[in-house]
């Protein structure tokens, strides 16, 4: 049949393509404002552009992390309060393997791959037994154990306990100090690839069943799906992505703070997708941009009371955009679309039968 589309044939997403273009040009444009030519930016000259690149790398890492949370919470309906553990395992493992054991970057990635599958299995172990809020609490418990381990003085030799993990030896070619632009584009590439993979996953037969599980797990079971394996698949992909985000975090940041293992960082993921729109994927990226810029802007111009205003803004977003930026946008454009169709129908006298989607 002619309809067998190749792997890369995704629905063109104009908004995301524009965002990609913006991010590709961003370092050079910022450089121009700063009086640095694109060539100077290319040579990793210091200045405003380098700082913005750093901020953008943080956004990409947050976006990766939020995407991974959107997959299990927004698409599969698994409320996990232990998601920060997925990220922190990636971050700490990278730091420790590079620093204490002299692993190469590829070997480190291999270990992270294995570790992320294992931790997905660990979360998966409790899946058949606990549902909903109980799952949230059990995962919170698991992540808390990991947080305590990270903070413990016994393991301080590796983790740096409450000071954080410092002195990670990053290979020169992606050093955030001297090769930041390269790191910027590598992180951006990872984000784009993961995003496309996620788009494909949620539209695949597997992803559709995940959505069905979110909607009505009992019915998905009655339809003949052993929902456990679908939830496990989503958990594995999510865990791998979060660990990859953690790895990039460890490479970029001079210090891995133990806070990334705490509940607060799980809430960060939840906040980002609430801002962007739960179950939209695009929302994870837009939410990450909004979250980081808001946080940065408020801290810079308001200072210490920033977190108070931060909180107020989140409350306002939930009140006025209950489906997040992307979710609300999609609903509005749907309604406007329907309005046009109805208007057209008045003149052409044809009935629009497909109201709804």
């Amino acid at each position, binding site marked *: *049949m002619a*309809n*067998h*589309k190749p*792997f890369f*044939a995704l629905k063109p997403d104009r908004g995301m393509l524009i965002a990609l273009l913006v991010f590709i040009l961003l370092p050079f444009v910022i450089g121009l404002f700063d009086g640095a030519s694109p060539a100077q930016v290319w040579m990793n000259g210091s200045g405003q552009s380098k700082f913005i690149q750093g901020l953008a790398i943080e956004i990409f890492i947050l976006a990766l992390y939020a995407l991974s949370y959107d997959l299990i919470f927004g698409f599969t309906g698994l409320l996990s309060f232990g998601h920060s553990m997925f990220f922190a395992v990636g971050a700490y493992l990278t730091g420790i393997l590079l620093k204490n054991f002299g692993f190469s970057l590829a070997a480190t990635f291999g270990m992270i791959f294995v570790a992320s599958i294992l931790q997905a299995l660990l979360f998966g172990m409790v899946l058949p037994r606990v549902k909903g809020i109980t799952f949230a609490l059990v995962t919170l418990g698991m992540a808390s154990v990991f947080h305590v381990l990270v903070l413990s003085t016994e393991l301080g030799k590796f983790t740096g306990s409450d000071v954080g993990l410092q002195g990670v030896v990053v290979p020169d070619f992606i050093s955030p100090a001297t090769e930041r632009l390269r790191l910027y584009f590598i992180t951006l590439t990872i984000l784009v690839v993961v995003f496309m993979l996620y788009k*494909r*996953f949620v*539209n*695949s*037969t*597997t*992803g*559709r*069943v995940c*959505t*069905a599980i979110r*909607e*009505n797990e*009992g*019915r*998905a*079971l*009655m*339809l*003949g*799906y*052993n*929902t456990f*394996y*679908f939830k496990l*698949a989503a958990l594995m992909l999510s865990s791998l992505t979060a660990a990859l985000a953690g790895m990039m975090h460890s490479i970029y940041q001079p210090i891995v703070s133990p806070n990334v293992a705490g509940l607060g960082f799980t809430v960060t993921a939840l906040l980002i997708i609430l801002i962007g729109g739960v179950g939209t994927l695009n929302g994870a990226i837009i939410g990450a941009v909004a979250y980081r810029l808001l946080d940065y802007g408020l801290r810079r111009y308001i200072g210490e009371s920033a977190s108070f205003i931060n909180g107020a803004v989140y409350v306002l977003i939930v009140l006025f955009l209950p489906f997040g930026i992307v979710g609300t946008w999609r609903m509005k454009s749907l309604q406007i679309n329907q309005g046009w169709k109805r208007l057209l129908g008045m003149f052409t006298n044809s009935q629009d*039968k*497909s*109201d*709804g*989607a």
Partner: protein
Amino acid sequence: MDSEIIFETINLCKEFGGLVAVDNVNIKVRKNTFHAIIGPNGAGKTTFFNLLSGNIEPTSGKVIYKGRDITHQPVYRTIHFGVGRSFQISNIFPNLTVFENVRLASQALGADNFKFWRSASAFKQYEERTWVVLKRVGLQERANVFARMLPHGDQRKLELGMILAPDPEVLLLDEPTAGMASEQVPELIALIQEIQKAGDKTVMLVEHNMNVVMSVSDQITVMHQGAVLAEGTPAQIAANKDVQTAYLGGLYHLNL
């Protein structure tokens, strides 16, 4: 009508705490028949269906399907055996489209559930099956509507479509017409009858509408307080004194 027995229960019991919801039920369902289960509210009909479809485990007793003991099989196996079950209260995926609801039902028995690197729309066989089913239940024009937006009657049709999609041999229909406008009922019942005849299917039906039950059934089992009160052809049931009492004592009148 001496066809083989497809579904059978042996001394099936289910207790909820002290309440005996299903009390020692022995039932034999013959292949390619229309078997109705009736009884007043609280007679244990839905619980009995839940036991058959594996939604709950019995306290004791066995469920035999085609000579095989399926009592303790997990619920997601049921449809793989060839038993489809619909629910009294519409049990659908509210925020997915009508099409996607049925497509998911069509996809379930295939071998493509874990091909996450390919778009679901690349598997045309499930989409084609979905269109066939949607046409069958008369929802093809509502395919792109979110299931939650459907009026109740259409949700009942969707519910039926979702169990027709995998083409099961046995249909367990728990009040398929519940809450439907009365003028829609004959249409749906005719459809179910047609499906049963055309596809050599076995239908088990829980239904309160006595006119429907009497006209379509080959065999009727009357349940009362968890136990089987009577069993027989529509004519035998209509003449049965115990059944008359059970119904007249309850809320229903047997208009025969």
